[in-house]
């Protein structure tokens, strides 16, 4: 499954932390360090498996843990329409 950032979303990065604003719901979302890394990778069109590999490399954690966290993170972003499924 691949995702793309909602083209309506406005996002910025401060000191490595990303935050995003959806003009329609006027709610601002702030990501954690890991969330910011994942967001950066999604922005670069990384696939789910590529994101997992990158997070495992950078944070030295089990792949299963990353997979679980990533699924929850992406599910939340899709529910909030910050991310859109593209395939």
């Amino acid at each position, binding site marked *: 499954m691949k995702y793309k950032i909602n083209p309506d979303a*406005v996002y*910025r990065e401060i*000191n490595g932390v990303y935050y995003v*604003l959806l003009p329609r719901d006027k709610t601002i979302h702030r990501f954690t360090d890991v969330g910011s890394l994942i967001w950066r990778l999604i922005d670069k069109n990384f696939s789910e498996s590529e994101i997992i590999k990158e997070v495992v490399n950078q944070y030295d954690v089990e792949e299963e843990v990353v997979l679980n966290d990533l699924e929850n993170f992406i599910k939340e972003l899709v529910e909030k329409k910050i991310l859109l499924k593209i395939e």
Partner: protein
Amino acid sequence: MPCKMNDVNTRNISLIIARWEFLIRALDDVSYNVVIKLKNHMKSARKYDDIEKFNLFISYNNGISSSFFKACNYKLSDNGNVHKLEFRDCVGTIDWESKKSSVEISNEGVVSIDSFLRYVTSFLSLVQGGALVHSAGIIKNNRCFIFPGPSMSGKSTIAGLFRQRFTVIGEELSIILPSKEGYSVYGTPFLGSSSVLSNYGGYRLGGIIFHEKSDGYNIRKIEEVEALIRFVENVTFYSSSKKYANLVLENSEKITRSVKAFVMDFPNNSEWLSEFDKYLDEMI
């Protein structure tokens, strides 16, 4: 049944005029010049039973683009130079060439006008590099400290507590605009518990203090990202346009970066005010 001019609540009209006078004061410095006069001209309306028709004369230096009205979800009919705007119980036309307009409002229309002015002020603040922010404002040493927060967060309580010690320039909405020294803060006369103000401000922004009601007093400095997110949540932002969302973030970043920001817990009594006053002296 159409009502007569005498039936109109004159206090409401005074409030409308006060708001436009405020806009002139606050925004004239930054090249916009909005002048509106209410004319005692009554005419029955086509769409509503109880309506007053006022003529509003608007002159612009730079003009407000029609895209703004579209962005604010107004229903806009475009007939060459004449635009018709419909919003709630407010119907208005603007002739961009002659720079004249008319607005029809119901007897309850002061609410619509208030909303309209909020939109205009929000938009003008954003395009000028500033923001219209839900916040109370107090003056200390010629600097304005704002207390951003949503409804029921305690802005009015804080303003009430501070009134004996400081000058309060607002307890509901503040306009923050760029100035030579950084940013300046203006109070606003929008509908609220103290909707007509004698002091509109123009004071240099000194600090941003987010606040939470509590049993005890505590204050701590916060980092840039936390300040930014808390701040953005209180910027009035009516458009669903990405362009204006970008302006909200861009301006908010610059504003929060220009001064220190704090989170304060406060009880509903005056015992902590001296300690807070001293803290401000030390931190600023």
